C-alpha cells in the first residue's frame, strides 16, 4: 500500500461576491451572494515511501490546498485521503507526529529568540528525547552551515539563514514525511543549493518522503524524481521528471563540432523531424524532437555525414516547457 493515497479528492471554497454599486450595499451586508470556487477538482494520486515529489502549478492551481488536505489542516469536500494508513484530517494529532511542514511565506520561529530556543520548544512539543534532539541539532547545524547564527535572535537573521532554520526545525523530530510549500522563495543561489542538498541528503539517509511545491524549476529538477503538474485544480501530468521532459519537449538542440564534412546534410535530411539550424566553421547545430529521435540515433545519423569530434546537447529548460503548458491551459 502506498504511503500517501489521494482518492478522487475535491475541495470547494465559498467566497462572498460583492455586488457593485451603492444601491447594493445593504443587500451585500444582509444577504451576501456566495459563489463556490472549486480549488481542487477530483484529483487522485499516490506516493510511495521515500519518493521525492514536486508539485508545479500556476498561482491558485490548488497546490497549497492539496498540501493542506494531505497534511490534515483541511477537510476535503469529497474524496478520501490516507497517509500511513490513517486519515490525516480525522486523526490530525496522530498524523502530525509523522510529518514536518514548512510553509515558505510564514515563519514558525519566534523572532525574539534564537533558533536554538525555537528548536527547544519543538523538542517539548514533539516529545523528542534529549539524545536524539542533540544529535539532530548538531547534524543539521553542520549540514546547513548554521554554526554562525545559532544563538542570534531570529529577527536579525537574513532570509536565507532563517529559511535554513525553518527547514531544520521541521525535521528535528525525524518525520517520515516532509511537506515543503515554496521553501526557496526569495533565497540566494547558495542558500537554495544548500537547502536542496540538505533535503536530498535526508532522503538518502532516512528515506524521508518529501513533497514540495515550488515555482523554481531548478528546485524540482535537482530535488525531485517525480512531478505532478496542477492547473486550475486538476492534474495535468503525473510522472517521472524525465518522462515529463520527453513528453513536453518539442525540440532539443544539439551542437556538433566536426573535423570533416562528407556530404552536406542540409541538402538531404536523413529524418523528417531533423532540422539544420546552422552549419559553418566546423560547427553544426541541429534541432530535433527527442520524442522521435533518441540521442544515439541522432549521433548515428550525423556521423554518416560528418566526422564528429564532439557534441553537446542543450537540454530544454523545464521552465520553458511549463510556461508552454500554462499558456496552452489559459487559452
Amino acid at each position, binding site marked *: 500500500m502506498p504511503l500517501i493515497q489521494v482518492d478522487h479528492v475535491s475541495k470547494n471554497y465559498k467566497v462572498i461576491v460583492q455586488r457593485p454599486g451603492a444601491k447594493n450595499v445593504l443587500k451585500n451586508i444582509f444577504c451576501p451572494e456566495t459563489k463556490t470556487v472549486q480549488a481542487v477538482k477530483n484529483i487522485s494520486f499516490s506516493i510511495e515511501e521515500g519518493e521525492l515529489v514536486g508539485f508545479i502549478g500556476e498561482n491558485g492551481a490548488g497546490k497549497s490546498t492539496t498540501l*493542506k488536505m494531505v*497534511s490534515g489542516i*483541511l477537510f476535503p469536500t469529497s474524496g478520501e485521503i490516507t497517509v500511513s494508513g490513517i486519515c490525516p484530517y480525522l486523526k*490530525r494529532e*496522530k498524523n*502530525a507526529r509523522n510529518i514536518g511542514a514548512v510553509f515558505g511565506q*510564514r515563519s514558525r520561529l519566534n523572532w*525574539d529568540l534564537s533558533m536554538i530556543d525555537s528548536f527547544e520548544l519543538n523538542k517539548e*512539543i514533539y516529545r523528542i528525547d534529549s539524545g536524539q534532539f542533540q544529535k539532530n541539532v548538531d547534524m543539521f547545524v553542520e549540514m546547513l552551515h548554521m554554526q554562525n547564527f545559532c544563538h542570534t*535572535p531570529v529577527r536579525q537573521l537574513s532570509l536565507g539563514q532563517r529559511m535554513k532554520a525553518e527547514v531544520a526545525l521541521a525535521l528535528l523530530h525525524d518525520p517520515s514525511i516532509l511537506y515543503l510549500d515554496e521553501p526557496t522563495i526569495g533565497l540566494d543561489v547558495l542558500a537554495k543549493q544548500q537547502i536542496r542538498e540538505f533535503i536530498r541528503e535526508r532522503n538518502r539517509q532516512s528515506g524521508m518522503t518529501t513533497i514540495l511545491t515550488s515555482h523554481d524549476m531548478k528546485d524540482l529538477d535537482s530535488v525531485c524524481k517525480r512531478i505532478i503538474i496542477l492547473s486550475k485544480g486538476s492534474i495535468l501530468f503525473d510522472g517521472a521528471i524525465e518522462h515529463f521532459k520527453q513528453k513536453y519537449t518539442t525540440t532539443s538542440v544539439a551542437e556538433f563540432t566536426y573535423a570533416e564534412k562528407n556530404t552536406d546534410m542540409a541538402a538531404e535530411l536523413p529524418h523528417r523531424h531533423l532540422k539544420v539550424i546552422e552549419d559553418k566553421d566546423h560547427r553544426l547545430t541541429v534541432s530535433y524532437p527527442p520524442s522521435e529521435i533518441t540521442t544515439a540515433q541522432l549521433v548515428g545519423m550525423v556521423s554518416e555525414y560528418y566526422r564528429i569530434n564532439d557534441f553537446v546537447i542543450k537540454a530544454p529548460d523545464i521552465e520553458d516547457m511549463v510556461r508552454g503548458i500554462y499558456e496552452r491551459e489559459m487559452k
Partner: protein
Amino acid sequence: MREVIWYLRLTSVFTRKAVKAMLSYRFSFLINCISQALDYSVAFLLMWVMISAFDNMNGWNAYEVMLLYSFSLFAYGVAGTFFFNIMNNLPGQIWKGAFDDVLVKPVKVLPYLLSSSFICNYIAHLTLSAIVMGICFHALEIPVTFWLLVRILWIILFGSLIYGGLFLIVSGSAFLVTKITAMFNIMFFFREVSYYPLSIFPKAFQLIATVLVPYGFINFYPLQALLGKSDTGYWKSMAAWCPVVSISFFMISCLFFNRSARQYKSSGS
C-alpha cells in the same frame, strides 16, 4: 491526567521562553505595567469621587462599589493571564494563515494555545485590585479572617472562569468571522457594566447579564451575599448558583471554541 501534566510542562517551557523574549523589551514591559496601573488607579479614584458625591448607589456606598470594581478587575486579570493572548493573536493567525502551523503539530488546539499564550502582563491589575480590596474591607470594618480570604478566592475563581469563557467565545468567533473587534467591544462594554451594582440597571438588562452573558456572577451576586446587601434587583440570593453557572458557562465556551476551530478545517483557505 498525564496529558494535563504534559501541557502544564509545556506551559512552563513556553513561559520561560516568553520571559526570555520579553527581556529584550524590558523597558516597554515596565512602561506598560506602569501605564495600566495609572489608568486603573484614576478609574478607581473617579469612581470614589463620584459615589461620595452621591452618597450611595442603590444602597451601595463608595467602598462597596469599589469592591465590586476590584473583584471584577482581579478576576479579569487572572483570566487575562491565561486567555488574553489567545484572543489577541488568534484573529491575526487565522487571517494570515499561520493557524495552519498549529494544526500540523501533534497537539490539541485549545490546550496548546493555552500553553503557548500564558503571559505575566497582568501584575498591575492584580496588585492594584488587591490593594483596593484591602482598603475597602478596612474602611467597611470587615475583619480580614482566614474564612474571608477563602471566600474571596472562591469568588475570584468562579469570576475568572466566567471571564475565561468570555475570552474563549470572542476568540472562537474569529474562526467564523475572522475580525472580532465588535465582539471584543461588547465584552469590554459588559466589563464596564460589572463595575456597578447590577440592580441599578433596567430589568431587561439584568436578565441579559444573568442568563445570557452571566456577568452578574463575576462580582455582583457573590458580593451581594458577602456584604449582606438587601437590594434585590430582579433576583434574590443568586450567589449559591455561582459555581454551577460559572463552570457550565466555561464548558459551553470551550465547546463553542472547539466547534468553531473544526469549522476552520472545512472552510479555511
